[in-house]
């Protein structure tokens, strides 16, 4: 074992299960929580903390899908519109009097189909991900508005079971938080312990080397958009069940939130680096930050400025640490 030694922290390859940046991020999150508690005693109030967790869960689910897409060097701008279409679809299906299970399945199917369309366009058609999903974003929003005739659709009274998904608690935690934890756990397992997970990193790292290594690049690329569409529709279900309305404008702007979360969590926009653990922490950081600003009364307009700046800073930090590693 002459050539192997265990002191290898510095130059570690960046797979999801080895998170050199993740540890730093945990400290950022803890620091933010301390600052929040100092600035406003209301922060540590259990009701407030539960709200923060709900926020993390809602953005977190869709951000996990975004993380998969970004790992392949892609981007999915259409998740917000997919949420819109699915929210309206869900409300319309309830209106038709279908059972809860069927409504949920069909809503998820709608999201999967839209994701599949993205995947086909990118993987088979060769349309750049930015353009494909931008087109889907505009088409999807148009579709949602058309289906709903521009109006929010109320679910009415017959949906008590369904409302549990967005409003219920289980073992002291809100149900959406459980949904997010399950999604995140599966995603972490897939990226870390399956060949498919490795292939996602491979496609994002070097697509030609991936092909020559025998990876079905088209299939992998297609699949991540499918996953992203599925998780967007899952988010839509949580949305609708919490608000008990299917709004055609649901999810507007969430794609930027999801990209920000993935990037802050250390997933590289240049593909092949990062993972879901970072995304969980990224979602928490963004949610705590928004919460602090709400508690101390920062205007929503100013909040936007701060969020935008944080995205740029996160990418600047990535570029800076990469340059340092290459020295």
């Amino acid at each position, binding site marked *: *074992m*002459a*050539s*192997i*030694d*265990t*002191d*290898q922290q510095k*130059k*570690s*390859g*960046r*797979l999801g*299960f*080895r998170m050199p940046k993740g540890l730093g991020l945990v400290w950022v999150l803890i620091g933010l929580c301390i600052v929040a508690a100092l600035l406003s005693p209301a922060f540590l109030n259990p009701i407030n903390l539960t709200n923060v967790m709900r926020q993390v869960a809602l953005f977190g689910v869709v951000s996990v899908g975004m993380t998969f897409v970004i790992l392949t060097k892609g981007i999915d701008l259409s998740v917000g519109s997919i949420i819109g279409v699915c929210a309206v679809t869900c409300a319309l299906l309830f209106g038709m009097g279908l059972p809860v299970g069927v409504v949920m399945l069909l809503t998820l199917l709608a999201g999967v189909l839209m994701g599949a369309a993205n995947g086909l366009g990118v993987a088979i058609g060769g349309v750049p991900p930015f353009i494909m999903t931008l087109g889907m974003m505009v088409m999807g929003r148009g579709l949602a508005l058309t289906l709903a005739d521009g109006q929010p659709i109320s679910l009415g009274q017959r949906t008590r079971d369904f409302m549990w998904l967005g409003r219920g608690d289980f073992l002291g935690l809100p149900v959406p938080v459980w949904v997010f934890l399950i999604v995140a756990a599966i995603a972490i397992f897939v990226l*870390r*312990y*399956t*060949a498919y997970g*490795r*292939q996602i*990193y*491979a496609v994002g*790292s*070097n697509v*030609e*080397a*991936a*092909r*020559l*290594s*025998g*990876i*079905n690049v088209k299939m992998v690329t297609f699949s991540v958009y499918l996953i992203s569409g599925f998780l967007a529709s899952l988010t839509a279900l949580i949305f609708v069940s919490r608000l008990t309305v299917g709004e055609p404008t649901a999810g507007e702007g969430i794609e930027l939130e999801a990209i920000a979360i993935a990037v802050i969590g250390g997933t590289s926009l240049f593909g*092949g*680096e990062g993972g879901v653990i970072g995304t969980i922490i990224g979602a928490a950081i963004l949610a705590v930050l928004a919460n602090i600003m709400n508690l101390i009364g920062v205007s929503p307009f100013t909040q936007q400025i701060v969020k935008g700046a944080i995205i740029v800073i996160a990418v600047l930090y990535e570029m800076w640490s990469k340059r340092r*590693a290459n020295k």
Partner: protein
Amino acid sequence: MDGPTLSVLERKTLLEMHEIEKSFPGVKALQGVSFKVRHGEVHGLVGENGAGKSTLMKILSGAYTADGGEIRLDGETITAPTPSDMIARGVAVIYQELAQAEHLSVAENLFMNRMPRGAFGRIDWRKLHHDAADAMMRLGFEIDPHLPISRLSVAQRQLVEIARAISQNAKLIVLDEPSAVLGDAELETLFDIIARLKAEGVSFIYISHRLKEIFELCQVATVLRDGKLIDSRQVRDWTTDTLIGSMVGRSIEDYFPARNADPGDEVLHVEGLTRKGIIRDIGFTLRKGEILGICGLAGAGRSEVLRAIMGADPIDAGTIRVHGSETKITHPRQAIQLHIGFAPEDRKTEGLFLNQAIRFNVTISRMKRFMRNGKLKLNEERKAVEGLVQQLRVKTPGIETMIGTLSGGNQQKCVIAKQLNAECDVLLIDEPTRGVDVGARREIYELMVDLVERRGLAVLMVSSELPEIIGMCDRILVMREGEITAELPRGASEEDIMRYATFH
């Protein structure tokens, strides 16, 4: 640059590069290289691939920064040159892969960054085309300045680059292996133009593998080898033998490991392999325990043969037999399942996942071995990779080290480890020592011999370094223009190979 002063200028030094040093991670590319180019001189620069010619020229152009040494132009030391600096000072480097804007016209390419302007900063198109036509005429080129670059032949593009250099008052033009992409007639034209511009006092650095051109065209020839300047003499003081001797610089017998070839059963049989316009009717048999070499000039279709077998490029015709049974390979995945491994020429763009760990790179093409009920057993994977890293003597702190931080030789060992992990029994390896430090090459050679003699693999290797082909291969296939022109036994000479690789 007027006539009467020419004779004086000819004796004066234009360019002096002094004690130039340059290192890349793991490779010393240039060590203390010093040489001079005089006004109105055509200076030949020769050396094997990886000798440091391109690096030296990139330093001259300002594209790379030297770690040490000085560049002087007309006696003036240039500190921290940038590409635009060097162009302004009259140094133009014309690379093999021309950096031109394909969709723009000849005129636009000629005057890029210095378009004639009219009122409000508007481009004065009429003047642009007039100036361009003028520049072309002065050099006697018959190229319509309105044509888009993409419509020109490679030779015409070279001429446009030369015209552009001249129109920027270039005093020194570097031509990087122009003959690799030019036909005989086109080369003739190029030589005429070089001779004419030389008479006007323009200097050239001419890089070529073809010694005949050096003797025909140059006044001085300088040899680089392994990043060092070996010798620089007037061309009349060189002979073909001394020039080759300086380039190769070592006797082949000492450098390559002894081979004890004992070919076994046929493992790969290729017949009639054709890809229209690229390769035609390629056929050969590869046996267990054998190293078969493919050589030829750049563009002869060597790498394309490997890619076609691998299923990386589509083929139009041909059959491939693996272990006696006919197969159809349309994707690299199928080739890997048939235990064919591929180490591509350009590791950075095709072979490696640079920002991933060694572990990742070694196992990515075959993880089945470590799967239990759909779950990757990371511990078993780690043990397997650590075993390979140790056997192949990869120098690394550990298997989680990012592969991009390793030296070329260690990267290549990891690529070979990847093929062993995939349990390949045929290895297609393209330029096995490209980007590998000279000191580490011997290790790669020993590893390849170990693969065929102890592990029972069959190796098909492509190389543009003839000593490597001669020193390593049991049989040699020579290619020219997409076809195999000869199969030579072990012991063939460079002259034998070149005879079949070139036109005669």
